[in-house]
C-alpha cells in the first residue's frame, strides 16, 4: 500500500486521479508478476520524498520600511482630510448665524433670504448693505449677480471651447494639435489676477467704446473676461472626450454614407457628450467660484438688475472685498463665512456631477471598444 500513498504524494494533480484509483484494484485481482512489478516500482519511488510547494523563508522587511509604508498610507488620506477641514472650518465660522444671540440680533437666515421692508424703502426689498447704519444682509443681489456673470461667461466659453475642441480633434492634423494644446494650457496658466487686470485696464475701455455703456465696469466685461479662464477647462476636457470616440464609430457612420458633418453632429458629438458635459460642468464650477476677475472687473455694485451693462457684485467677490475689514466673529464676518460655505457646497455639487459624467464617459467608451 506504500505505492498508493507515495503516488498520491507525488502526483497531487487532478489528472492522475483515475490511475491512482486503479492501482489498488489492479493489485487485488492481478497476477503475482504484476504485483512484483508494482512493488519494485514502489520501492523505487519510496526514496522520493513527497513533493510539497517550496517553503521560502522570507526575511521580514526592515522596520523602517514598514513604518514608511504606514506613513504613506496616512499621508494618502490628506486630500480627504483637506476637503473635510475646509467644510468644517468654513461652516464653523458661519455657525453663529444659527445660535449666537449677538449675531442673530443683526441678521437671521430669514432676513438674508426674504425681502425686508427697510426704513426709507417704499416696498420690501433684498438689499446688501452690510456696513450701513442698519446693516442689511439680503443675499439676492449677490446671487443674481453671480448668475448673471456666470451666464455671460458660459455663453461665450461653451461655443468657443467646444468649437475649438471639435476643430482640433476632427479637422486639424496631429502637428497642429501638438502646438495648440500646450498653447491653450498657457491660457489656462495665466493667473486670474492678470486676467482681471487686463479686463479692468483694456477690455473695459474697449467695451465702453463699442457699446456706449454707462458704467465702465459691468457684468458684460467681467463675464467675458471670466470666459477666458473657463475656455481652457472646457476645451481640454471636450477635446479629450472627442478624441476618445472609437474610430469604428466614425468608420461605421462613413460606411453608411454619412457626410463628415453628419458623422460629427450625429455620431461623434453624442458619443462624446458626457465628456463635453463634464467639461462644461467643471467650467461652470470655475466660473461660479472665480474671484479675482469679477472682483476687479465687475464694478461691485450690489444691485438687482437684469441688464448686462450694469455694475454687478458676485458672492466670491463680496467675500474677497469685505472680509479684510470686518470685526472677527461679528454678524458681517459670520455672514461672509456663510456665503463661503454656500459657494463651497454649490461648486462641490457641480464638480461631483462633472466627475460622475467623466466616469460614465469612460465606462461607456470602455465597453464599446
Amino acid at each position, binding site marked *: 500500500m506504500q505505492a498508493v500513498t507515495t503516488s498520491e504524494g507525488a502526483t497531487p494533480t487532478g489528472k492522475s486521479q483515475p490511475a491512482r484509483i486503479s492501482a489498488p484494484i489492479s493489485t487485488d485481482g492481478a497476477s503475482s508478476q504484476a504485483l512484483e512489478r508494482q512493488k519494485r516500482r514502489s520501492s523505487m519511488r519510496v526514496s522520493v520524498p513527497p513533493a510539497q510547494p517550496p517553503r521560502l523563508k522570507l526575511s521580514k522587511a526592515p522596520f523602517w520600511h514598514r513604518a514608511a509604508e504606514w506613513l504613506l498610507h496616512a499621508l494618502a488620506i490628506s486630500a480627504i482630510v483637506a476637503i473635510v477641514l475646509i467644510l468644517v472650518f468654513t461652516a464653523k465660522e458661519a455657525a453663529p448665524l444659527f445660535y449666537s444671540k449677538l449675531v442673530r440680533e443683526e441678521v437671521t437666515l430669514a432676513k438674508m433670504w426674504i425681502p425686508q421692508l427697510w426704513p426709507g424703502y417704499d416696498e420690501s426689498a433684498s438689499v446688501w448693505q452690510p456696513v450701513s447704519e442698519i446693516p442689511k444682509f439680503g443675499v439676492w443681489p449677490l446671487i443674481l449677480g453671480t448668475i448673471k456673470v456666470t451666464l455671460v461667461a458660459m455663453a461665450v466659453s461653451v461655443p468657443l471651447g467646444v468649437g475649438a475642441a471639435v476643430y482640433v480633434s476632427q479637422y486639424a492634423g496631429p502637428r497642429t494639435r501638438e502646438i495648440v494644446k500646450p498653447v491653450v494650457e498657457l491660457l489656462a496658466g495665466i493667473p486670474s489676477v492678470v486676467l482681471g487686470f487686463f479686463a479692468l485696464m483694456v477690455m473695459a475701455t474697449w467695451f465702453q467704446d463699442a457699446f456706449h455703456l454707462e458704467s465702465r465696469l459691468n457684468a458684460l466685461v467681467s463675464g467675458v473676461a471670466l470666459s477666458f479662464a473657463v475656455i481652457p477647462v472646457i476645451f481640454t476636457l471636450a477635446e479629450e472626450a472627442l478624441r476618445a470616440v472609437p474610430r469604428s464609430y466614425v468608420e461605421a457612420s462613413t460606411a453608411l454614407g454619412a457626410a463628415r458633418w453628419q458623422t*460629427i453632429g450625429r455620431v461623434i458629438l453624442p458619443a462624446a457628450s458626457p465628456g463635453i458635459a463634464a467639461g462644461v460642468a467643471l467650467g461652470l*464650477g470655475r466660473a461660479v467660484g472665480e474671484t479675482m476677475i469679477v472682483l476687479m472687473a465687475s464694478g461691485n455694485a450690489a444691485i438687482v438688475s437684469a441688464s448686462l451693462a450694469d455694475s454687478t457684485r458676485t458672492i466670491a467677490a463680496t467675500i474677497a472685498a469685505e*472680509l479684510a475689514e470686518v470685526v472677527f466673529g461679528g454678524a458681517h464676518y459670520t455672514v461672509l463665512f456663510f456665503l463661503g460655505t454656500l459657494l463651497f457646497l454649490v461648486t462641490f455639487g457641480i464638480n461631483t456631477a462633472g466627475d460622475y459624467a467623466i466616469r460614465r464617459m469612460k465606462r461607456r467608451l470602455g465597453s464599446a471598444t
Partner: protein
Amino acid sequence: MTATDAAPPTAADRAALALQAARRTRRNFLADGALAAATGAALLIVLAILAMILFDIVRNGTPHLSWTFLSKPPSEGMTAGGIFPAIVGMVEMVVLMTLAGVPIGVATAIYLHEYASPVSPLTRAIRIAVANLAGVPSIVFGLFGLGFFVQFIGAGIDKAFFHGDKVFGQPALIWAALTMAVLTLPVVIVATEEALRAVPQELREASLALGATKFQTVFNVVVPQASTGILTGTILAVSRGAGEVAPILFTGAAYFLPLLPKNLSSQFMSPSYHVYVLSTQSPDVDATKPILYATVLVLLALTFTLNIAAVVVRARMRRRAGVAT
C-alpha cells in the same frame, strides 16, 4: 423587386436621381465647409485672445522693466521704485508651500497608484476628494486658511507657547504658504500619478522577481523613473501658487512692508497681490500704470516660463515612456 423590375428607370428618372445626388453632394460640401470654418474660427478666437493679452502686456510692460525695477523696493507712494520685496516674499512663500505640499501630494499619488486597490472605497473616496479639491473656489481656500490655520492652529500655538500674545494667531507667511500648499495638492497628485502610470509594469515585475520588497521596488525603481513627472507637478504647483491672490488675501499678504519678511510669522508682499491692490485701490491710476504693467509682465513671464518648462518636461517624459513600452 417587382416594381423596379417591371418599370426600368427612364432617362428622366435617372436625371432626377443624379440631380438629387448632386444636390446632396453640394449640400454636404457646403455643410462640411461651414462646420470646419465655424469651429476653426472658434479656435482662432481662442488663440487670438491669448495673443491679445500677451501683446498688450508685453508692449506696455517692457518700457518700465529694468534691473532697478527688480532690485529696488517701491518708493514715493508706489509711483516709483521696484518690486524687490514682493519678489522675495513670493519666493519665500512658494518655497515653504513646496516643502509642505509636494511630499504629501507625491505620497498620495504613490499610495493611489502603487499600493491601493483601485476598487476599494477608500481609493474612490480619495479620488473624489482630489477631484473636488481641484474645484474648490480659491476664495474658499482663503476662508479656510483664515478659519483653520490663523484662527485655530495659530491661535492655539499662541495660547500654548506665547501666553496668548498674538504671534502666530494672525495672518503670516507660514499660513499663506500652507493654505497654498492645500490648494496646489491636486496639481501635484495628478501630475505624479500620470508619471507613475507611464512607468512600465515590467520594471516593477523585474524588481520583484529579483527579490526586492514592494517598498524597495517602489522607492528604488518606480519613483526614480517617475521623477520627471514629480518635477512637472512641482513646477505647475509653483506657477499656480505664484499667481493666486484670493487664498493669501486674508492669510498673510500685505500691501506694503518696509522690511523683508524675517520669520515665519511675518507678513509678506507678493507681485500678484500687488497687482490687485495697485489696480483697484490706487488714488492715481496714471502714475502707477507703468509700474503696474511691469509687475504684471514679471508675473506673467514667471508663470509662462514655469508652464512652458512643465510642458517640455512632460513631453520628454511621454516620449521616453513611449520608447520604453
